[in-house]
C-alpha cells in the first residue's frame, strides 16, 4: 500500500464522518442561504472544530460566495475545502541529523505508543535511533516503552524502578547517543496536565539539559494530542508551547469516530501544524501528515 492509500484508509472513518456530514448538508440544499451556512457551521462544530473557528470559516466562506459569485452547493464545498486546506497547510523543516525529538503531552494521549511508531519510521529509513525513557513517573511506563523499542528494534536508555529524575535519564541518553553516533534520539516524557506548574517546570529542565548537552543537534518537540479531545486541546498546545518551543502535533486515535477538528483551531491560533497522525495500535499505524492531502481526503 502506498503512502496515499494508507493515509486514506487510515483516515477513512474520520473522513467518512466529516464528509458524510458536510456532503449530506450540501446535498440537501439546492440554494445557498443562511440555513445552509448554519448547517455547515454545525457540521464543523460536531467535528470539534470549535464554535469560534467554525464561525470564522463559515464567515470566510460567506465572503467568497459573495465575491466569487458561487452558486452551487458543489462550489461552496470546494471553497470550504480550500479554506480548510489553507488553514492546515504548512512547510516542514527538513530533517538534519543528529536530531533530538522531545515528545510531550497530557496523560493517556498515546505518547509512548507514538514513540514506538516514530522509532520504527526512522529505523526503516535507515537511521540509528535511540529511545530515552524519561517517563519515570507513571507505573510501568518504562516497561511499556521497552516493549515498543524491542518491536522497533532500537536501543533504549532507561532506569530501573525507584529512579525518578527524568532529566538524568535524558542526560545519560544524550551521552550514550553521542558515543553510539545515533541519528535520532527520541525522548519519552511523563504525561502531565498543563496546569500543573511543578511538572511543567520539570519539562523545562529536561529541555534545558538537551540544549546544554547537545546544542549541535536539530531539535524537534512534538505534542501528542488525542483526537477525541475537545476544546481543551488548544489550551494544552498553548500551555506546553509556553514552556518548550513546540514544532508540531502528533494526532492520535484517528481510527475511532473522533474527527480531531480542533487541529484547525490550533493551527489557526498558534500556527502549530499537525505533523503525524496515529491510526491504530500497530507499529506501522503512523503516517506523516500533509495538510493539502488532509483537506482533500476530508471533502
Amino acid at each position: 500500500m502506498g503512502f496515499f492509500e494508507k493515509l486514506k484508509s487510515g483516515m477513512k472513518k474520520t473522513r467518512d464522518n466529516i464528509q458524510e456530514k458536510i456532503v449530506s448538508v450540501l446535498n440537501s440544499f439546492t440554494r445557498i442561504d443562511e440555513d445552509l451556512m448554519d448547517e455547515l457551521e454545525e457540521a464543523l462544530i460536531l467535528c470539534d472544530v470549535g464554535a469560534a473557528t467554525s464561525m470564522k470559516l463559515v464567515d470566510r466562506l460567506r465572503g467568497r460566495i459573495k465575491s466569487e459569485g458561487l452558486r452551487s452547493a458543489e462550489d461552496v464545498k470546494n471553497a470550504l475545502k480550500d479554506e480548510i486546506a489553507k488553514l492546515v497547510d504548512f512547510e516542514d523543516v527538513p530533517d538534519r541529523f543528529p536530531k533530538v525529538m522531545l515528545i510531550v503531552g497530557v496523560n493517556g494521549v498515546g505518547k509512548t505508543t507514538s514513540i514506538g511508531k516514530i522509532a520504527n519510521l526512522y529505523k526503516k529509513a535507515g537511521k540509528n535511533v535511540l529511545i530515552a525513557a524519561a517517563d519515570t513517573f507513571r507505573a510501568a511506563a518504562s516497561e511499556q516503552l521497552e516493549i515498543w523499542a524491542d518491536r522497533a528494534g532500537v536501543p533504549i536508555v532507561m532506569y530501573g524502578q525507584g529512579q525518578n529524575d527524568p532529566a538524568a535519564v535524558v542526560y545519560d541518553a544524550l551521552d550514550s547517543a553521542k558515543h553510539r553516533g545515533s541519528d535520532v534520539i527520541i525522548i519519552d516524557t511523563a504525561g502531565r496536565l498543563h496546569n500543573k506548574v511543578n511538572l511543567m517546570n520539570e519539562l523545562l529542565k529536561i529541555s534545558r539539559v538537551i540544549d546544554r548537552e547537545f546544542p549541535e543537534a536539530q531539535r524537534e518537540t512534538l505534542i501528542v494530542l488525542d483526537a477525541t479531545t475537545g476544546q481543551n486541546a488548544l489550551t494544552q498546545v498553548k500551555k506546553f508551547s509556553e514552556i518548550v518551543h513546540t514544532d508540531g502535533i502528533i494526532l492520535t486515535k484517528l481510527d475511532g469516530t473522533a474527527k480531531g477538528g480542533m487541529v484547525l483551531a490550533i493551527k489557526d491560533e498558534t500556527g502549530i501544524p499537525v505533523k503525524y497522525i496515529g491510526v491504530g495500535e500497530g507499529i506501522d499505524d503512523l503516517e506523516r501528515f500533509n495538510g493539502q492531502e488532509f483537506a482533500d481526503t476530508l471533502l
Partner: protein
Amino acid sequence: MAFEGLADKLQTVFRKLTGRGKLSEADIKAAMREVRLALLEADVNYLVVKDFVKRISEKAVGQEVMNSLTPGQQIIKIVRDEMVELLGGTRTAMNIASKPPTVILMAGLQGAGKTTMCGKLGAYYKKQGKRPLLVACDVYRPAAIEQLKVVGSQADVPVFEMGQIKPVEIVRAAFDEADRYGYDIVIIDTAGRLHIDDEMMAELKEIRDFAEPTETLLVIDAMTGQDAVNAAKAFNEEVELTGVILTKADGDTRGGAALSVKEVTGKPIKFLGVGEKLDDLEPFYPDRMASRILGMGDVLSLIEKAEAAFEEKKALELAEKIKKDKFDLSDYLDQMQQIKNMGSMQDILSMIPGGNKIAPGSIDEKGLSRVEAIILSMTPEERKDPSVINGSRRRRIASGSGTSVQEVNRLLNQFGQMKKMMKQFSGKGLGKRGKKGFMGLPF
C-alpha cells in the same frame, strides 16, 4: 483563558434590561446565543446543546423576573438548575452487592485512565474496611499488567494476573481466588478499546456476561470533545453501563463531556479522578459540575443566601428610613448582622466569580465584630443621633467595646460619609431599588 464565565457574558447581555419585569423573546434569544456558545466551548455535544437550549428557552420565556434578581441571574439560575437536573440531581453512590463479592467492571477508550482508576478504587474500598482485589484483564497493551501491579502495590491491594491469556479465564480464576481468600470487592481492569472495534467490544461483552458485575463503569477523559456521545452510547448499548467515572478532572477543561455522557446514557456519574495520586478521587456532585461547565463561581448559592438573610420587610423599612434620612446606627448594626447571616466574608467571596482569587486572610473578619461591639456599647440615644457623642462618650464606648478611641472615630466618620451618600441617592429613587445593589454586589 479566552472564555470568561457565562455569568459575566449574560450580565452584559442583560445590563440594559434592568428594571423590566419581563424578558422579551429577543432578549431570550440573545441570552440563549451566549448559553449555546458557553456550552459548546465547554465541549458539551452539539446536539445535546441544541436540545438543552430549547428547553431553557421555553422555561425562560414569560417567567417573571424575581424582584431581587436581575434577568441575567434569572436565566443563569434556570440554566444551572436544569443542568444540575440533567447531571443527575443528587449524588449517586456506588452499589454494593447483597451477596459478596461486589464486582466492578472498568471499561473505556485507550488512555482514559482505567488502570490508575482501578488503583484509586482499590484504595477507596480498602479505606472503608473492605477487602478489594484487582484483576488484570488488559492483556494487550504493553506493560499494562505491570502497571496495575505497581498501582496495586502502592494501594496495598492484591493484584490477580495470569499473563496474557483470555480475559474471561482470568476473571473465572479471579472469582475462585476471591472466594478462597474472602475478597469482597473485585475490580476488573480491561484493555482500552475503540467503541467501533467490534471484536474488542465482543470481548468486553463476554467478560460482562460472565462476571455479571454489580457496577459496569465507563471511564472517560473529562477533556473529551464532541465524540464523547458516540463512545458512551456504544459502550452503553454493548455492555449496559451502571455509571460513569470522569478522569483528569484536575485539568482546566470545563468538562462538558460529563453532560453529554449523562444525557446519552442516562447513567449517573459516580466519581471524578482529580490527580495521579491514589487518593485523588472525589465523589461527583452535579451542582459543582454544573458551575464548572458554566464557568461560574457558586453565584446561585450566594443569591439564595442573600435572599434568605435579607428579610423583605426589614428591607422595605430600611428603604423608607433612608428616604426620610432617618437611617441611624441601629439600622447600620442591623444590616451588618444580616451580612453576617450570609456566612463569613471569605465564604461569600469564594462564591463570587473571581472572588476566590482574593488571598485568604486579606479580609478582616474581626473588623465586622469590632464595629458591632462599638455600636452595641452605645446608648440608644447615641445610636439614633451620633452627633451627641463627645470626647468622654467616645472614651466610654471605646473601653466598653474593648477597642480604641481611634476605631470609634473611624466608625463614626464612615457612618457620616455613608449618610451623606444616602442623601444623594435617596433623591434618585434608591428606595425603589431597595436592597438591590447593596455593597456593590450584583443582586
